[in-house]
């Protein structure tokens, strides 16, 4: 197959490769939501939505919206067979209690400790915490899916987060439109570069120190 050309779809496609058969997965708002487009039904992945259900299907087609059935971003969605609704306490029993295998969420910054910041910009406010802190604390694997640099061109992968951190937890993987980076206790390790991107280009767009092993790969289909 050919790889998706848009940055967000490339990120979503690469994240999808990290998911294993039968896992319970929570997708954050924005780019992470696109991950479901790259999951085949044979993978038997169950999507949990923090507003109160498991068994989330595709977005609803215009004109076919189902009343009171939205995802955590307020978009109209559908169900798959075997879905179940529950209240917010149960939703966070699932999230905080360690019953979700993988959460995929966006970030404003990630740093050399593997900490992410995604809920508050001092002076500007918002967007807010929502379920983010509980997801990062309670989920078995946390994958950050974000564009490599900010809209103003500044790096998002930095030595230390300048924004308030979401949790004192090292995330498990960072997937961007330029690279795949694995946080470790030794620091951030560059694992893969996107097609057409060089290691030097990744380093130039990253202000954090990156460990570059000899076997850096390329994202391939």
């Amino acid at each position: 197959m050919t790889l998706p050309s848009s940055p967000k779809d490339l990120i979503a496609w690469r994240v999808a490769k990290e998911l294993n058969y039968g896992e319970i997965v929570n997708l954050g708002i924005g780019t992470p939501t696109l991950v479901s487009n790259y999951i085949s039904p044979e993978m038997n992945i169950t999507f949990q939505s923090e507003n109160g259900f498991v068994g989330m299907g595709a977005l609803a087609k215009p004109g076919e919206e189902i009343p009171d059935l939205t995802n955590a971003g307020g978009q109209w969605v559908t169900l798959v067979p075997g879905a179940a609704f529950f209240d917010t306490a149960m939703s966070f029993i699932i999230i905080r209690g360690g019953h979700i295998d993988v959460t995929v969420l966006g970030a404003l910054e990630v740093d050399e400790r593997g900490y992410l910041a995604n809920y508050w910009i001092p002076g500007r406010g918002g967007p807010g915490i929502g379920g983010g802190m509980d997801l990062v604390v309670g989920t078995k694997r946390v994958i950050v899916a974000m564009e490599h640099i900010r809209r103003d061109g500044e790096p998002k992968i930095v030595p230390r987060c300048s924004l308030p951190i979401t949790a004192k937890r090292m995330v498990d993987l960072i997937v961007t439109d330029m690279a795949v980076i694995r946080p470790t206790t030794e620091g951030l390790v560059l694992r893969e570069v996107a097609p057409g991107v060089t290691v030097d280009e990744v380093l130039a767009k990253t202000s954090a120190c990156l460990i570059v092993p000899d076997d850096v790969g390329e994202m391939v289909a």
Partner: protein
Amino acid sequence: MSKVKTVQEAMEFIQDGMTVMLPGFLGVGTPKALIDAICERRVGDLTVIYNDGAFPGVGIGKLVRCGLVRKMISTHTGTNPELVKAVADGKIEMELLPQGTLVERIRAAGAGLGGILTPTGVGTSVEEGKTVMELDGNTYLLELPLRADIALLYAFKGDTAGNLVYRRTARNFNPIMATAADLVIAEVENLVDIGEVEPEHVVTPGIFVDIVVKGV
């Protein structure tokens, strides 16, 4: 005995300065007729406990636009620029919490617990001013119960005794908030006679509900 009242009768119990619990997630699961009535009567200076900012003019966003909110206890504001601005301008005081903490604080109040211990928020801005506890090698924040003067629920179906059934994702905070306020008013879209809700299907037992109003 029937708990059914008109929206206007129910409004007699809502007063300026009260703390009000409103369920909902981005407007889904939030009562509509009750919020409209609050706006019409200009009941103000409210402390509102609600998950998010919804959208401008929608659900809780309607109370914000009407200028009736003094303080919000919430988890997320980003979808409502009017609320973000009101907070930035100091017009609305904001207590920001993780969603799982908000719901457990309400549950603790309803369940008669003195608080809950959660790992969420440890080492972050949420920790400020709170008791940090070490137990069995893990670190937790002590989060205290959260009650309200009044809770305004929204149910898809309810009987005249206040037994409630919700629809899809509109359930969210409703069953929890039903347990943690001095007065609980449920707006139901489909009002039926007592006995017409299958006991097996009741999500919120009517013992939690003081007043039932018919939704629009």
